[in-house]
């Protein structure tokens, strides 16, 4: 089977390779993602409200005035990761339901740009979520003051967010093509998030303790960094295949 066109219209092969720079494609996709989220307010408000509700539930369920140390770090990280799953589940829905995948796949661009743009979108969602959730956690649950440890907590959260963004993008792209995407997203994400919870909570726990408040644990930060890098490479290698039929 063949469909032809005038030979004069055929550009040379080197002119046919993706000509738009990947950076520009990522910027175009990211702008579109943020514009759609600003108009619909589907993901970030839901993630933020979920985290606030979870802190309130913990506040009453634990029946104690405040938490600190290991318990505080655990509550913070588990809440943030569950909230992140809401964002992961919505990340590709507009593309799947409104033909965004096809529109993108028909363009002569590097397909990995979508992976980078989606990961940056999820990262932006997580950062906004944390701007709401971390102060709320400090007010509703945390015993010790947050201020002395703020820099360390921010760095740890950022490393965790990078991993969540990359894994979430990979899982979201896989799940959205299935009928059971609302189930598959959390089922695939949660096991992959476990090392992030462990590394994040262990690195954060000393910063949230009353006594023996220590500095950042280089070991756990390095663990988070290596995990981020590992999944960054896996996502880069696999993403093109996830977009194929």
């Amino acid at each position: 089977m063949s469909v032809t066109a005038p030979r004069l219209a055929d550009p040379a092969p080197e002119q046919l390779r993706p000509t738009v720079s990947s950076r520009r494609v990522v910027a175009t996709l990211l702008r579109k993602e943020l514009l759609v989220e600003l108009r619909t307010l589907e993901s970030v408000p839901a993630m933020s409200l979920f985290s606030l509700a979870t802190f309130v539930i913990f506040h009453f369920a634990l029946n104690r005035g405040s938490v600190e140390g290991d318990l505080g770090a655990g509550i913070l990280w588990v809440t943030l990761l569950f909230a992140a799953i809401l964002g992961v589940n919505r990340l590709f829905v507009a593309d799947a339901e409104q033909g965004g995948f096809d529109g993108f796949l028909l363009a002569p661009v590097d397909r990995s740009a979508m992976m980078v743009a989606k990961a940056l979108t999820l990262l932006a969602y997580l950062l906004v979520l944390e701007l709401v959730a971390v102060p709320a956690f400090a007010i509703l649950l945390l015993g010790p003051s947050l201020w002395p440890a703020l820099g360390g907590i921010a760095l740890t959260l950022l490393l965790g967010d990078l991993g969540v963004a990359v894994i979430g993008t990979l899982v979201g792209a896989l799940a959205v093509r299935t009928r059971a995407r609302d189930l598959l997203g959390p089922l695939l994400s949660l096991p992959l998030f476990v090392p992030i919870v462990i590394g994040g909570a262990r690195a954060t726990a000393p910063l949230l303790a009353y006594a023996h408040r220590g500095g950042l644990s280089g070991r756990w930060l390095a663990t988070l960094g290596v995990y981020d890098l590992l999944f960054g490479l896996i996502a880069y290698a696999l993403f093109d295949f996830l977009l194929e039929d």
Partner: protein
Amino acid sequence: MTRRYGEREALRDVSLSLPAGRTLVVFGPNGAGKTTLLRVLATLLRPHAGRVEVLGAGLPDDGWRVRGRIGLLGHEPLLYRELSAAENLSFHASLHDIRKSRVEEVLEAVAMTARAQEPIRHLSRGMVQRVAVARAVLHEPDLLLLDEPYANLDPAAVELVAPLIGPESGRTRVVCSHDPGGGMAEADLVLGLREGRVALLAEAPAVSSEQVTELYQ
């Protein structure tokens, strides 16, 4: 060429060649494989057997060579509902590395300039289809793949988009249609599909409308 979905063969042993600048009109009842054929030609689906060549590129391996030269107008408009027509077209223009003034040109060509800033979800189906036509021809593709392109369009709108996607566009076209009269009027070559197999393949002058109608019985 053969294409399967699981065990089911959506297309089987479909074989044809379409010369440049000509129009192939594909008829067939629902589920005959028309949309699958368009998606394979658009490089969105992989053929599972056989050889497919589009604009000189073998699929699926060389699909990347021709993606920017194909315009697809399918059942879905490929437009984000929350974005305006202008924003959607600017988005596609960026992906295809096209000058922004082209967006205004195509919006004017489909008479959507006045409503260009409204979200797609606020537009009627006919207007959305006109914007989808603008999107499909935005990058001046060599090959147009059209799945019932005049659906939702009133007669005036059909006339409006004809220079862009009709025979007078001069492009190589593959058009899926359920309208024997309208389809035959613009066909150079006719393909009839039934359950994924070729039931009719001939030059348009040699095909009667009865033969097309029989495909649906």
